[in-house]
């Protein structure tokens, strides 16, 4: 290594720091140099030395609550969890065949999916950089497999383009890049970029555009072997007599513009949707089950919390058994409350006026998911679509093909709707069977002649009608963050809040995990100081 002559590469510097000072320093150095940008997870907390007999009551058996109970239990606390549902996991949840779900308003669905098939009503994919969640999945034995986010063979549909015919993502993407490259190269030829580029840089950019956009020798995006290597051939490459491929004709740029393809492409450039992504084998709910095994015997299900008191140097939680209707109280020295603010704001919480205001300041978003089961994987068998997402400007916004059990026979479940904005309210306002019928109708644009014909049955969850959350996720804005966030996360006497709502990784499981770890670390410190 001769740094004086050539200057060290970044890798060489990192290796040197790693050898001299261990991985913690290496990690910090990586952060400074701009690598390893992930959510804030520096490893599990190592909480130790709880005063014997100190009790902690955890409210909510979602990921935040169960993790709090696990880590505090390890530290020596006597922990108990109260949960409203009759299952662990909270929003981490999968609906399987045989499951029954009753939403607010009373509509009940009996899920009829074949064994192994499922709908993930809540979270459904894990970014590779959600290191805290990935850490605990490994630690708790939750098997993961790839989640296929982007699939160039999937379809993009817009009512405004191609006469409403869905087109291959691959073709639209290639034609978008090709046309933009050609236009930029024209701008260089017309000296349109002279004010911002030197002659040398303009020449280099021109060559780069030819490579990036698959342009021909004349810097045009045209029908040829080169562009077809991106967008696909009219006749694919083969063997023997007819082996020679026939190039395909790019679409007119106006149609590409109308398709809005850049929105889909840009979505996949977002940090949260970049490869690699993961999902648990067998459904997202496997994470909740995996966590629950670690706190076995500590969860009391079917408990509806009605008040939290901090009087008399202790925490007293009043809760009603939703089965028997019997109301009781549980006392503890401390409380970790992971109840969503949508519900907590309706519970009598004995806390500072500031925390009370924060609890009441954050509304919840809404979303609807619909799972549709089909007799077979016609999208794989006939169209070679293996996982990934087809996008539409219809209300369902997308359909997602299963990433698990690829290339298998038998029935499979497509995520048939994942709504945003006004469409979520519209869908949630319908009875479940109407949501399913509408998702089937709208999604059939992608696979006419198959979608409705091979449909078996569906399941749907409208989060605004979810009995245990009354919504999807905490919906912060700039003002509420400024005014309430720090108060919301602060330890309030013997109480601390945790969950995705107490994080900046809102609506992701990682947010719940990181919030929980931070909350219990501070609560533990408080307990030791008391």
């Amino acid at each position: 290594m001769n740094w004086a002559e050539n200057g060290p590469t970044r890798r060489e510097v990192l290796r040197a720091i790693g050898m001299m000072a261990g991985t913690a320093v290496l990690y910090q150095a990586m952060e400074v140099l701009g690598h390893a940008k992930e959510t804030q997870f520096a490893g599990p907390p190592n909480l130790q030395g709880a005063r014997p007999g100190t009790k902690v009551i955890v409210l909510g058996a979602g990921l935040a609550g169960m993790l709090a109970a696990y880590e505090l239990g390890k530290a020596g606390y006597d922990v108990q969890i109260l949960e409203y549902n009759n299952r662990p996991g909270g929003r981490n949840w999968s609906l399987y065949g045989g499951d029954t779900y009753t939403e607010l308003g009373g509509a009940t669905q009996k899920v009829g999916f074949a064994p192994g098939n499922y709908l993930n009503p809540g979270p459904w994919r894990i970014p590779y950089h959600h290191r805290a969640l990935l850490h605990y999945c490994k630690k708790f034995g939750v098997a993961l497999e790839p989640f296929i986010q982007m699939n160039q063979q999937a379809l993009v549909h817009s009512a405004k383009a191609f006469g409403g015919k869905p087109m291959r993502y691959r073709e639209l993407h290639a034609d978008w890049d090709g046309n933009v490259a050609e236009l930029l190269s024209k701008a260089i030829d017309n000296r349109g970029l002279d004010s911002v580029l030197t002659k040398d840089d303009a020449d280099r950019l021109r060559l780069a555009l030819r490579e990036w956009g698959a342009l021909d020798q004349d810097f045009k995006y045209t029908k040829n072997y080169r562009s077809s290597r991106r967008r696909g051939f009219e006749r694919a490459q083969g063997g023997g007599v007819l082996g020679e491929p026939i190039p395909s004709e790019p679409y007119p740029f106006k149609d590409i513009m109308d398709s809005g393809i850049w929105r889909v492409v840009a979505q996949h450039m977002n940090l949260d949707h970049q490869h690699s992504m993961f999902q648990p084998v067998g459904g997202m709910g496997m994470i909740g089950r995996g966590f629950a095994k670690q706190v076995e015997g500590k969860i009391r299900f079917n408990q509806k919390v009605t008040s939290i008191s901090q009087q008399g140097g202790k925490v007293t939680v009043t809760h009603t058994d939703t089965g028997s209707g019997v109301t009781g109280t549980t006392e503890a020295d401390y409380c970790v409350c992971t109840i969503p603010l949508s519900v907590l704001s309706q519970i009598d919480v004995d806390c500072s006026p500031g925390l009370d205001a924060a609890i009441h300041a954050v509304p919840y978003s809404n979303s609807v998911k619909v799972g549709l089961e089909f007799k077979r994987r016609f999208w794989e068998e006939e169209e070679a679509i293996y996982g990934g997402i087809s996008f539409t400007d219809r209300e369902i916004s997308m359909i997602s093909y299963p990433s698990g059990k690829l290339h298998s026979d038998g029935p499979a479940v497509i995520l048939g709707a994942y709504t945003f904005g006004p469409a979520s309210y519209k869908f949630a306002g319908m009875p479940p069977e109407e949501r399913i019928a509408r998702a089937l109708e709208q999604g059939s644009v992608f696979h006419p002649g198959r979608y409705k014909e091979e449909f078996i049955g569906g399941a749907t969850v409208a989060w605004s009608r979810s009995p245990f959350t009354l919504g999807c996720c905490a919906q912060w804005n700039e003002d509420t963050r400024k005014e309430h966030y720090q108060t919301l996360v602060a330890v309030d006497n013997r109480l601390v809040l945790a969950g995705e709502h107490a994080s900046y990784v809102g609506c992701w499981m990682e947010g719940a995990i990181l919030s929980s770890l931070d909350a219990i670390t501070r609560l533990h410190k408080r307990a030791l100081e008391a």
Partner: protein
Amino acid sequence: MRFVLLAVTLTLGLIAGPALAQKPAKPAPTPHPGAEVYQNICQACHMANAMGGEGAGRIPALAKNGALEAAAYPIMVVTGGKGAMPWFRGLLTDQQIADVINYVRTNFGNKYKDKVTPALVAELGVPAPKGGNREQ
């Protein structure tokens, strides 16, 4: 069989077409402009019958709701949100907000006579928050 049915339908259509167009039955009542807003937005939580629901928490019933008597209250809640309910300023126009409040205040067992106008919504409503991106 399908052919026969089709033929019958066509025949009936030809004969009944003009007659149906002039059908003297009472004209369909014009739907309240707020009804569509209610169906597309509000009933996602408050339910089609405006009875709300109860789980770990409660979604209040709008039916026979005494809190709707002072129009300023629903204006503040719909524009600014309350508890789990998000703000709807920005998603709905002041006209739509006025329409849906008028609809709820005169249906579902509510009989409040005074009308809410877009001007009143503009005057009493809460502004949409900054950076309040609704999408997750």
